[in-house]
């Protein structure tokens, strides 16, 4: 049995300022060391001043992930030396002496699977290191130092890399939705994973670049661990990193001595009191949660549970749904989106390339419901609209789509088919299950326009006569 846990660092890039000072939170593409002040460079005498919105946004993330939020939160120092750390300690949160971080003990259900959240904490990002070829020096840029980060640690509840990918997509959507972060910016969302097979040791996978890479890295690692176990070789508990060029995980430096971080309370930041009133205000500012959305879809529109599951956890398509449906075609719209559209565009890039609009989908749903188009024609029309962006009417005429339901026309086509497929007809008379082949032929001749029910009806009558 595979157990995967995640540690996700999410930058709050949409905030105006850093976690402890008023420098810009969004540091990308700025000239080196141009976005700094005494506080984020840790100059002597400087003191951290906590950003209210960062705490509020972290509360939102905690709420969205079902976490408990303590009445009082505290900050701690994690002491270690590194060139990108201006104070040689990081101001972070720490729960070893009590649950004082912004969130703990949460859970989220993604497409039926429950993932428990161990804790959520607010902390500062260090600066950035630039390596100059083979030189013994590293160049340090503190523009990023002090950028607010939310660290989310899950329990090892994931069983497959696919679950991990779906969770990460939901999380990315969530933070974008709350207005905290653009998770697709380079470095905005960093994921480390830990993975174990059966009773084997846990391996940490660090420094994975993108969401896609995480799935690949996890797949590789599972395979690696399983093959070791098959040969009865025990898995070493270690840290590995993903080598993108070679598409493998590689052992990082040999098991380093456990770092002693000598945590102590950050006395420059007082204990922060988060009253229920504040939490209620924050809740009001939050967009609808996935769970609430799913329930609304089921209750209000009668959308089937499985369809609602998929639709509610994809913000892009949920938004499209909201814009596309009217009073009567909600269920059909949901169906078109989750069954057909999703298969054309399931990644962020593909979604952004879609030429289809809410109007397209609404028109399509109405046409199918009004029997102006068969489902089959509808699928063809959708595919064309996605590619070209042409209106439904244009597509119907250019592809000669439509809905033929008059028995006369259909009977004519069926007679043609009976002429051309004598063998199949004989077989169908003996074995009624094979009738679909003939239905298919009718559809082909009519370019999918023939009404399926009427076609079947007439076919059956003719076969039994």
């Amino acid at each position, binding site marked *: 049995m595979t157990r995967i846990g995640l540690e996700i660092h999410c930058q709050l890039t949409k905030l105006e300022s850093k976690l402890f000072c008023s420098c810009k939170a969004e540091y990308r593409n700025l000239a080196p060391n141009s976005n700094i002040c005494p506080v984020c460079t840790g100059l002597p005498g400087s003191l951290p001043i906590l950003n209210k919105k960062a705490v509020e946004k972290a509360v939102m993330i905690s709420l969205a992930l079902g976490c408990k939020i303590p009445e009082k939160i505290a900050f701690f120092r994690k002491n270690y030396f590194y060139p990108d750390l201006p104070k040689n*300690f990081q101001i972070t949160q720490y729960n070893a002496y009590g649950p004082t971080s912004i969130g703990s003990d949460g859970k989220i259900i993604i497409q039926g699977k429950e993932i428990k959240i161990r804790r959520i904490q607010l902390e500062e990002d260090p600066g950035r290191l630039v390596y100059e070829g083979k030189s013994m020096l590293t160049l340090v840029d503190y523009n990023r130092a002090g950028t607010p980060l939310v660290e989310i640690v899950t329990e090892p509840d994931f069983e497959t890399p696919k679950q991990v990918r779906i969770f990460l997509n939901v999380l990315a959507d969530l933070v974008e939705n709350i207005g905290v972060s653009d998770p697709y910016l380079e470095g905005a969302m960093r994921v480390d994973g830990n993975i174990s097979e059966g009773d084997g040791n846990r391996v940490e996978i660090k420094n994975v670049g993108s969401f896609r890479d995480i799935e690949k890295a996890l797949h590789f690692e599972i395979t690696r661990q399983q093959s070791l176990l098959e040969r009865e070789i025990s898995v070493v508990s270690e840290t590995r990193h993903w080598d993108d060029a070679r598409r493998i995980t590689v052992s990082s430096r040999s098991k380093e001595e456990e770092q002693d971080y000598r945590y102590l309370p950050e*006395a420059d930041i007082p204990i922060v009191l988060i009253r229920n009133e504040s939490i209620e205000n924050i809740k009001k500012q939050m967009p609808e949660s996935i769970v609430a959305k799913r329930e609304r879809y089921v209750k209000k529109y009668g959308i089937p549970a499985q369809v609602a599951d998929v639709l509610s956890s994809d913000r892009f398509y949920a938004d499209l749904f909201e814009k596309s449906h009217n009073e009567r075609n909600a269920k059909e719209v949901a169906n078109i989106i989750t069954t057909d559209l999703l298969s054309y565009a399931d990644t962020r890039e593909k979604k952004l390339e879609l030429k289809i609009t809410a109007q397209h989908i609404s028109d399509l749903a109405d046409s199918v419901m009004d029997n102006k188009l068969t489902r089959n024609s509808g699928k063809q029309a959708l595919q064309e609209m996605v590619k070209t962006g042409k209106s439904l009417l244009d597509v119907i005429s250019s592809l000669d789509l439509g809905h033929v339901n008059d028995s006369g026309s259909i009977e004519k086509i069926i007679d043609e088919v009976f002429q051309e497929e004598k063998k199949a007809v004989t077989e169908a008379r003996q074995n009624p299950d094979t009738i679909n082949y003939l239905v298919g032929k009718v559809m082909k001749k009519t370019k999918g326009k023939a009404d399926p029910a009427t076609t079947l009806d007439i076919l059956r009558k003719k076969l039994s006569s």
Partner: protein
Amino acid sequence: MNLGISATEFVSQAKDGAISVEEFVAKTLDRINRVEEKLHAFITVDSQNALAKSKEIDKKIKSKDKVGICFGMPISIKDNICTAGLKTTCASKMLENFVAPYDATVVSRLKSEDAIIIGKVNLDEFAMGSTTEFSYFGTSRNPWNIDYVPGGSSGGSGVSVSALECLGSLGSDTGGSVRSPASFCSVVGLKPTYGLISRYGLVSYANSIEQVGPMARTVEDVAFLLNIISGHDPHDNTTVKNGHVNYTQDISSGISGKKIGIITQMIGEGVDKEVVSATNRAISKLQELGAECIPVSLDAVEHSVAAYYTIASAEASSNLSRYDNLRYGFDFGTEGYEFKAFISKARSNFGPEVTRRMLLGAFVLSTGYYGKYYLKAQKVRTMIKAQLDEAFKKVDFLISPTMPILPFKVGEKIDDPLKLYLTDINTITANLSGIPAISVPFEMSNSGLPIGMQLFANSFEEKKLLQAAYALQETANLPEVPL
């Protein structure tokens, strides 16, 4: 021109045009030149700027323009408080070349009231010490007898005020570092309530405990400075909004009817006999003024030194991590080094006391020891505060001698760190609990060495405390500084 006037007197004379600020500052600089060879209070003297500023202020006074309430009074600043454009070395090799591009809040508040920063004064390296002997630039000397220590860590502040090299000083007090030099140098030194004064620009040593503290020759001068530097600062999240208290107003209202508790643990065993009898005389004087003095026992005091040094070392070991000489510090090339080796070598330039405290700090915070030392020490803080709160239900103030011993000779206690730590036993209680405490010069010992008395009040009761200190000050009859 009498350099020995109080800051308050200076203001009234300068305001009236009775003295020229430029002349006063020039004479002060002259005095500094003459005595510094013996006293070594200053690390940096800013003569050019001081004189230029003094001329400006004289002009403003003459043309009846608005002048800040300090009227150009020369103030010295402990060299662990940042001053824009002037070095802030913390008396350490590690910051030998450091010039902050910003003023500490307390400095900018003084400057905006037209105080003149005459220079930066000596301290124990990074404020860790009780005698100023741990300064990288060499110790300062007590103006009452230059073979003796001036106290510490704000030794330079105590000396410069006492030896008439300035009218006031800002020091910092973490375990007694303002009150100890105040007592040893026969000047007034206040450690305010934690959170009353901004620490922005005060180089951190033990950030849950330390405070900037004003020092001057009279209590009313200290109150005057407190009015300017105290109050909430958006640059310091640990400052508290305390309303606008005027500390100089009604300062002479006396202590008739007030109750004063004598902390029994602070005048018992181990306290120098002369100090004990001076304390008894101080108590009598206060009784004559109408105060009722009763003994008060605070048994938590017994654990205060251990608790203080545990917490202070722990915080120091973290606060000083930033000094790796990469962004600022002193000259030291990075060529040929690996990161850990580089910074370890650079950091070997800390002095022995700082190194000792960082080692202790690393120890008490290392895995497994947090509960045994650091957490226990924090419990002692809470215990002390609880006992103090109980005491303040019965009394208005507490009293003790500031230091349990007389000033001692340079070099006498430098090789026994623990012994030196124990001399802080009377001052540490106020730091751990956060309550304000003030040292008032009271007497000279038989050998002409200063003895100071310490008064405490509960949190944010500085106004009351200064009134009691003023009353005590008025009973003292002290000689002029011999230098």
